């Protein structure tokens, strides 16, 4: 009976409880789901707040991930233009954020008063113009762009709501006019227009810095001495080069007149012209270095080989004569030290036009140089094959024009043992290695040339370049400028190229002065010995002190040029006279 009742009770309950059970089951299910959901959320929150919070900061993996994310974000921002440095890390060009002042005329109620106060802060602005701008019916007008922080502060002190600042990037050149032609300038949008700024535009725009091989201190010295020479001799232009003889790195490259990179709009055209690399000039007697080297390299001649320099050479309608005629037979060292055109022309004839031309080409004098800036001039060369007269004039540097930088590079090749170098403005891209560099002349010829160059300074036309302590060897060159097809006797290009220390040359120093006029101290002479040799000597003195180069106050009796004395006829004459 009870059993039946329970069964019925259950069954009755069962009927309803089945539905109830179902409902209850569903509720249970839902409840569990929610509970699970909230548990997950709770756990996640704990995870974020506690686990990934303070603990994660110490976890190296997490830190690295965060750093990478930050880096990626940095790159997506607009990149600041790269800086330009010299070889010692001195800043030559950088970009700074400057404020530019604008006015909102609709917020200005007293234009006259405001303009007056602004005119006090910016004396170069016109009061009337500002008042006019403020009366316009627009919402925006520039007052002045790129103001200094000092001016910005004064404007803020005005407390004028109608004024505002826009921040712009501006290219700043801390060295002013010192590297005008090397570094170059940029336009308002920060795009390079000349020099390194132009040629390395893509690199700089991507934010990469450029390190140059130039040395600010040496650049200053070169500029100072070339300026002095120009001032002393009232010249119209000048060039100064200091180059590493082994790597071709330019330590100084000066072209005068120059201009201030921060203010290039006021520069005159002559100042913007890059005489270093773009100008092509007839180098005159400096080319005798190469003709003499060509002879020594291609023929097995002794130094006492003589040339008849008694009479000028007449060929066709041309006449080749010497500036200081010796009127006698000259040995090779004598031809070089007295800078005889006749002797050199004969040397060139011996070598022949073809061999001379290919020698010059190997020295990099004939073709347009590939350089680190785009402003490069193409040499003016007589067309091949060279005629007899061309060969002769080219030997003493006339009838062929090349750039000063190619000239310096060729002299470096002559004195560094004979290895061809590439002039460069960049740090560390040089580096001559015995295997990779092309050998243009033999070590023996290079050694003999060094002695000849030293002779020019000890006994020849370059005496004014001599500096005690640093043995300089070099060559003078006084070239008459060719204007409209005629050579002007009074318009000269006086130059001197020197290498020091001549026993093992490390640097080439070259100075060129454009159209010097003789002064009282030079007895009216404007030749290279008076004009260009002294600046080279002064530059070398300063370089020695700045770079800390060891001096060599060596016994003059050990000077390498003395090895050539036996080959000088005049020396033998002197000895004969002395012994009598």
């Amino acid at each position: 009976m009870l059993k039946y009742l329970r069964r019925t009770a259950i069954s009755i309950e069962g009927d309803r409880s089945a539905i109830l059970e179902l409902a209850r089951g569903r509720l249970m299910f839902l409840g569990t789901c929610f509970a699970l959901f909230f548990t997950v959320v709770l756990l996640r929150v704990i995870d974020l707040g506690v686990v990934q919070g303070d603990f994660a900061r110490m976890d190296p993996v997490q830190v690295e991930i965060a750093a990478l994310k930050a880096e990626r974000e940095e790159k997506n921002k607009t990149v600041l233009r790269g800086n330009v440095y010299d070889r010692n890390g001195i800043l030559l060009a950088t970009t700074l954020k400057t404020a530019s002042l604008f006015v909102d005329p609709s917020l200005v109620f007293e234009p006259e008063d405001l303009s007056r106060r602004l005119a006090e802060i910016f004396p170069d602005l016109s009061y009337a113009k500002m008042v006019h701008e403020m009366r316009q019916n627009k919402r925006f007008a520039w007052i002045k762009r790129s103001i200094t922080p000092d001016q910005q502060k004064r404007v803020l002190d005005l407390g004028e709501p109608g004024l505002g600042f826009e921040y712009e990037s501006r290219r700043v050149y801390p060295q002013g006019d010192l590297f005008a032609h090397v570094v170059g300038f940029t336009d308002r949008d920060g795009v390079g227009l000349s020099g390194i700024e132009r040629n390395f535009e893509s690199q700089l725009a991507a934010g990469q810095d450029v390190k140059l091989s130039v040395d600010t201190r040496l650049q200053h010295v070169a500029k100072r001495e070339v300026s002095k020479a120009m001032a002393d001799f009232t010249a119209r232009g000048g060039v100064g080069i200091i180059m590493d003889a082994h790597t071709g790195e330019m330590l100084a490259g000066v072209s005068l007149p120059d201009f201030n990179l921060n203010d290039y709009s006021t520069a005159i055209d002559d100042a913007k012209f890059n005489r270093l690399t773009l100008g092509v000039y007839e180098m005159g007697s400096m080319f005798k270095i190469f003709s003499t080297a060509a002879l020594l390299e291609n023929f097995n001649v002794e130094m006492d080989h003589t040339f008849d320099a008694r009479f000028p050479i007449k060929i066709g309608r041309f006449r080749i004569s010497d500036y200081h005629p010796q009127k006698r037979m000259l040995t090779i060292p004598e031809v070089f030290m007295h800078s005889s055109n006749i002797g050199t022309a004969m040397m060139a004839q011996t070598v022949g036009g073809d061999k001379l031309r290919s020698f010059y080409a190997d020295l990099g004098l004939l073709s347009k140089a590939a350089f680190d800036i785009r402003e490069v001039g193409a040499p003016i060369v007589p067309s091949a094959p060279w005629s007899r007269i061309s060969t002769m004039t080219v030997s003493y540097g006339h009838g062929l024009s090349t750039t000063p930088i190619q000239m310096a590079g060729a002299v470096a090749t002559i004195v560094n043992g004979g290895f061809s170098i590439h002039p460069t403005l960049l740090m560390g891209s040089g580096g001559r290695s015995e295997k990779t560099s092309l050998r243009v002349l033999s070590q023996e010829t290079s050694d003999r040339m060094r002695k000849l160059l030293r002779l020019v300074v000890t006994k020849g036309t370059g005496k004014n370049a001599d500096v005690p302590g640093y043995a300089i060897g070099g060559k003078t060159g006084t070239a008459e400028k060719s204007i409209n097809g005629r050579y002007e006797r009074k318009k000269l290009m006086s130059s001197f190229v020197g290498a020091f220390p001549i026993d093992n040359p490390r640097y080439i120093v070259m100075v060129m002065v454009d159209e010097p006029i003789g002064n009282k101290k030079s007895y009216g002479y404007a030749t290279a010995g008076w004009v260009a040799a002294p600046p080279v000597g002064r530059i070398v003195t300063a370089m020695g002190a700045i770079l800390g180069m060891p001096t060599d106050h060596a016994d003059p009796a050990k000077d390498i040029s003395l090895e050539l004395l036996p080959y000088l006829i005049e020396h033998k004459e002197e000895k004969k006279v002395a012994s009598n």
Partner: protein
Amino acid sequence: MNIYIQYFAVFLMAFASGASLVVVSHKVQGVEREIARAEREISREQEAIRILNADWAYLNNPAYLEAMATRYLNLSAPKAEGLVSDFSSLSGNAVESEAVPLEADRIAVEGARVPTAENGRGVVPVSYVANAHPQEVGGR
């Protein structure tokens, strides 16, 4: 009983998760503000560094330094004869200058105050001794 406990548990979890969410969110906002402020300061400092670097380079301009050196230090460019790297190359004719000892009690300049070992950080006036170069005495 069970059901009430269950309800309570669920309610508790919901409340806890909501509360912790709010707290964490608040903390995050605060941290984000801090980050933004720090980043603004960093970029301001970086710009200041750039300006200072440019200023430093400008002050290191050789022409400017040369003008300053000539005007205030009375220095001029060195002459080649004066540059020597190897003392053995100098002749032995140099005049022996009187070596001035550097101990404070030997050197004396009138009115100079030189701290001595005895009085520690004190200063003691000393009397003048001939031939001592006044500027060589210590006393920084």
